[in-house]
């Protein structure tokens, strides 16, 4: 063992110690506002079995896990840098991944699995969650990915478009105090195009004034807009039904000639409907990414001044990203309205916007595959925690984890689990440049 390693290791060990105490607090029992230290104290003194060997403070368990994974990562890295076999393996893998047919096959397999999923999952909780908490969130994440990932615009009020889609559906189907759009109410099915278009229009209306602003101002202004939409939904009782929520939104039904079908309480038919739209949106977003539009988005994201000097109108493309991203959120809104039959402003909070953001960040901004993966994994974990909460877990604790995850991702893996090809390259390139400078 060499000295620098021990030195480095001991500072890391200290950091891991602090982190594990923090983790113990975060996962431990809650406190209260009368005795400030009780939550911290209880969390740190709480006992747990040390891998079944003996009983110790729960933080010690976290500490052990932290140290072991640090060492593992450290030695793996070392091994990796000495070992070119690993590299060749990786490049082989990436050449396989590049293969068009391989990709196509992977997509087909995933598609088939998605179609067969309802036959495997029979638990009613999960059947419901599959649609309203997973598939709908995949749609939301896909939409936000266009805005954040492709165009590089941090929109913290994305939930506004979701709300517009949902309330538009309620409006069309006569579930709002405000009279429905065409005088008489329609089946939610026909609300789909209207809701999508209204969400896109909302994107344009919100985008034109705000997208002229610098990136950080945009974030705070969209955050404010998101809050204001909730505020209006709460207070304009005559239009939205206020905090009490809407009247009953009917289920989907289809009557075309002899064809008759009603989406009832069973989530499975909704599932197939959403999956259809997920595929449609993936196709659209993928095509856009690999077109002139996607390249223009990347150019603006990378260097707006240079993009402008080449004749790209940044405002136009940014507004377009807002509108296109809003489309899938609008559809997600239709699904939520029609499936849950009922809307309240309490659904459309800043917390939800941040929740969607974390799906995008975790999977990989700008990577469609990553984002879908991130949304499925995080939402499944979330639902699992609600379904079978571990001891001491309360649902709002989730937000603590989400906050921490955002910071951790930004520090250690800003590109997400599956970095977008275009972003990854930039990261690699800048780091290699810095190395050569330093």
């Amino acid at each position: 063992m060499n000295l620098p390693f021990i030195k480095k290791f001991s500072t890391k060990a200290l950091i891991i110690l602090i982190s594990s105490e923090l983790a113990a607090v975060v996962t431990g029992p809650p406190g209260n506002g009368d005795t400030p230290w009780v939550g911290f104290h209880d969390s740190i003194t709480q006992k747990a079995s040390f891998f079944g060997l003996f009983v110790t403070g729960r933080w010690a368990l976290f500490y052990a896990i932290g140290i072991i994974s640090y060492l593992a990562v450290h030695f793996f890295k070392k091994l990796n840098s000495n070992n070119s076999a690993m590299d060749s393996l990786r490049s082989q893998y990436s050449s396989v991944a590049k293969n068009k047919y391989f990709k196509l096959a992977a997509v087909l397999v995933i598609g088939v699995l998605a179609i067969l999923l309802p036959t495997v999952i029979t638990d009613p909780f999960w059947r419901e969650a599959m649609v309203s908490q997973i598939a709908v969130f995949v749609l939301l994440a896909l939409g936000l990915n266009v805005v954040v990932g492709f165009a590089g615009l941090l929109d913290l009020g994305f939930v506004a478009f979701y709300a517009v889609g949902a309330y538009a559906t309620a409006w069309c189907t006569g579930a709002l105090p405000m009279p429905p759009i065409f005088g008489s109410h329609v089946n939610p099915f026909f609300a789909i195009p209207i809701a999508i278009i209204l969400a896109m229009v909302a994107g344009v209306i919100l985008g034109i004034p705000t997208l002229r602003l610098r990136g950080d101002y945009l974030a705070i202004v969209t955050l404010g807009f998101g809050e204001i939409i909730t505020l209006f939904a709460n207070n304009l009782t005559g239009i939205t039904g206020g905090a009490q929520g809407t009247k009953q939104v009917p289920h989907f039904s289809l009557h075309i000639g002899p064809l008759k079908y009603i989406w009832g309480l069973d989530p499975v038919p909704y599932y197939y409907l959403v999956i259809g739209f997920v595929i449609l949106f993936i196709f659209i977003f993928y095509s856009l990414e690999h077109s002139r539009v996607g390249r223009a988005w990347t150019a603006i994201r990378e260097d707006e001044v240079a993009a402008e000097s080449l004749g790209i109108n940044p405002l136009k493309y940014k507004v377009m990203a807002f509108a296109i991203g809003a489309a899938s959120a609008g559809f997600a809104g239709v699904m939520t309205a029609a499936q849950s039959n009922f809307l309240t402003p309490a659904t459309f909070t800043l917390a939800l916007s941040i929740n969607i953001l974390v799906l995008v960040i975790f999977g990989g901004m700008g990577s469609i595959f990553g984002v879908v993966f991130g949304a499925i994994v995080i939402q499944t974990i979330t639902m699992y925690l609600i379904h079978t909460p571990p001891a001491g877990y309360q649902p709002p604790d989730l937000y603590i984890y989400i906050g921490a995850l955002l910071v951790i991702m930004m520090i250690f893996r800003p590109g997400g689990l599956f970095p977008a090809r275009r972003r990854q390259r930039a990261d690699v390139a800048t780091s290699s440049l810095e190395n050569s400078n330093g």
Partner: protein
Amino acid sequence: MANLFEVSNITLRFGGVVSLSNVSLYQKRGEILAVIGPNGAGKTSLFNSLTGVYQPQEGSITFNPKEGEPISIIGKKPHVISHTGVARTFQASRMFNALTTFENVKIGAESHKGIGAIGAILRGPATRKDEKYSDARTWDLLDFVGLRAKANYIASSLSYGERRRLEIARGLATNPEVLLLDEPAAGTNPSEKLELTDLIRKVRDQMGVSILLIEHDMKLVMSLAERLYVLNFGSVIAEGTPDEIRANQNVVDAYLGTTTAEGAN
């Protein structure tokens, strides 16, 4: 025929700082024109004013395209000015670092068409034809600047000289009438400088694109430019052919004296 650029009496201020004061100049069509001057003289500010990045508070800038009416540059957005036929490079090169060399140039080649979101989704014959055309044009330009071999490299992995050439290709892809080059030789080695000189001349001779050039390397400027303006503290202090400039005592005092001293060490 009217001059390509006609700049009269522009003044540009930032708060108390005056970066350009009462500057007038013109460029003839097909000319290789250079702007020189010490650091902070206002050269880049002039470029930024010509391309709509900065808006001078006073004066006028007129651009005369080959076809159509004269265009007043002031008050226009950079992307609009690009559409009229003005392209530029930047002093600190600004690549799209996440994209390949090829994609960088292609963005220039396709940025003057409509937005085409619907086309991008449906991929109809018109869209495919457009793509094909942009691809062909991109390959031509990469050949022209000698970067075909690096087409699939990430832009930020290129050497300084290559980046400069890439920026030139990207600017040319927009099909301009004039190309503004802001210190294209900065950071390049002597052999790259020679190649660059040839390339710039080739752009003018073979493509018929006028050149407006900012450069500190006197050898390069004097061999390339047909006419020069000298800026100092935001004002034009001299104008003329390379020989006239060399002989101008003002210029020697204000600028050339120092650069030759710099060049010596």
